[in-house]
């Protein structure tokens, strides 16, 4: 049984010119538990919007988004938030760590809204990503690569069913990008977590069991320049 299922979903936005622009239209997509899929697409191909719809941050205009048995489109916003807190991990291109918090606290935040905070598990995750010596460092004391490793640990903190990764290597040099990708994939495998990774980098294709071209998956006739800053 699939963990994530998208059926006939669409999303459109009102552009600055006052016209409705369709960003996403996907007939069908499925992701199984523990599976790792690369969604390949250029900037502006609607990939962030798609991930935000799966995460329940924005709602689809039509269709069905079934995540771990719940239809994200039909859930009320607070229920979507709760579902996200329990079932999803999110890795961003620009890390999105909170500067006021130490590494371990950033990881604890990843589990703060889904249930009980497990400091020991947060510590283990940071040890696993090679930051056992940096537990109490703040993000501004870390390198770019280290920041992304903290973000990866945070995404796994709530023992999610699915990790969404939005260009997680986009801001990293090749060496750190390889480390970060390896960590995401291996940690997801170790925890039985599915991974849906979005990237424009074609060199990642051979790292995944399944690669989908987002321009083919997304039937919306949108060009990168038409999204008005939305991607």
């Amino acid at each position: 049984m699939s963990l994530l299922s998208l059926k006939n979903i669409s999303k459109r936005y009102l552009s600055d010119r006052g016209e409705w622009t369709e960003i996403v239209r996907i007939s069908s997509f499925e992701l199984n538990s523990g599976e790792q899929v690369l969604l390949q697409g250029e900037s502006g191909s609607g990939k962030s919007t798609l991930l935000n719809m799966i995460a329940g941050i924005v709602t689809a205009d039509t269709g069905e988004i079934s995540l771990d048995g719940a239809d994200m489109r039909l859930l009320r916003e607070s229920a979507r938030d709760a579902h996200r807190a329990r079932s999803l991990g999110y890795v961003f291109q620009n890390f999105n760590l909170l500067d006021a918090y130490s590494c371990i606290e950033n990881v604890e935040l990843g589990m703060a809204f889904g249930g009980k905070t497990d400091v020991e598990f947060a510590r283990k995750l940071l040890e696993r990503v090679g930051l056992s010596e940096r537990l109490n460092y703040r993000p501004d004391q870390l390198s770019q690569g280290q920041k992304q490793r903290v973000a990866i640990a945070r995404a796994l903190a709530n023992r999610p069913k699915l990790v969404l990764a939005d260009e997680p290597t986009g801001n990293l040099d090749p060496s750190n990008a390889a480390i970060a990708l390896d960590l995401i994939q291996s940690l997801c495998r170790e925890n039985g977590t599915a991974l849906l990774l979005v990237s424009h980098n074609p060199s990642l294709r051979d790292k995944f069991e399944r690669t989908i071209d987002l321009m083919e998956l997304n039937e919306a006739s949108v060009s990168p320049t038409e999204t008005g800053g939305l991607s």
Partner: protein
Amino acid sequence: MNSVSIAMRGIRERRVSSAITIAAVALACSLLMLVWAFKKEAEQSFAGASGGFDAVLGPRGSKLQIVLNALYHLDESPGLMRWADYEQATKFPAVEAAYPLAVGDNYRGYRLVGSIPEYLQNHAYAEGQSFELESGGSLFEPRSMQAVVGAFAARRLGLGIGDTFHPYHGLVYNEGAKHEELYTVTGVLKATGTPVDKVIWIPISGIQTMSGHNPKAATDVSAVLIKLKQGASMAGFQLDMMYNKQGDRLTLAWPANRTILQFFDKISWFDKILQAVAALVAIIAGGSILAILYNAMNERKRDIAVLRALGARKRTVFMISLLEAVGMTFAGVILGFVVYVFLGMGIGEIVQRETGVALSPFSGNAAMVWAPLGMLGIGLLSGVLPAIKAYRTDVSRNLS
């Protein structure tokens, strides 16, 4: 990690602005309590410090001046009255007791008041409370060079039984105006919390016949303290009529405590200014919370979006923002209590030094409940707008 700890972290992160806001709330809260609670305490203490007397008879002049001089040992006497006036006052059937006072000298700024020993021996300065001497002490003998020192004056001057001192002429201490007479302390009064505490008591003849005083005034008195018999309420009206309406030589301040309350009424405009200032500071403190949190929200849109992406509900980020406002206000209120106690004790010390009236910042007053609660309410209200802003933060737009 929960909403409270996240909110507290937010406060700590903005150390300087949070500290300024907390200080503003503390100032507002302590001012509100001081202006309302302490002012009420002052009124009650001053009215209650009338020393158990119903009226004060003095030379023709202002009632307030007579009361301040005779009961609170402040201000100067408006003049002198004859010993016969005192004797006449004692003879009214409704008068339970009358005690003459004479003033005009001091010892190192503490006023010498001449009276008869019966005042300290027989009079109850409050319901069921008579003057008591510290152990080993005794009252002065009439026409002696003996003195009984009030508790506050004794402490300040370091006077004890057996100590001697030379009085100084006038009510203001002037080193060059020393009298020849040498007085010996025979007793120290226990604290009463009334103006009696800041006075040195000597026989009335001592003031009247002190070297350098006008011999023609050797039997005059400055005022007469009068206690009426219980149930003789009409007597006050009769004496008032006799001295104030029909006579033109003396003034009767009756009821004595009303005179001081009327004084407080007269300066109520000053209270209103203080109240307005306190209210203004409270509003500014609230505005400060609003401004700090609202501006912080602009800087923290991304952080809020990240929290939301991690699963925080809208109402959670709303609560976190509100808790920051309430947390800062709560810290300000606690600090406000500390400031209030320190200021109250400081003011109480000054008031006691100047008037002998004991004021306590700890006496219960409704303002000590509503002022902190009011500040918490202002803090809560100030936090609503930033909290709404946090609630409405566009997650997808601020994550990128």
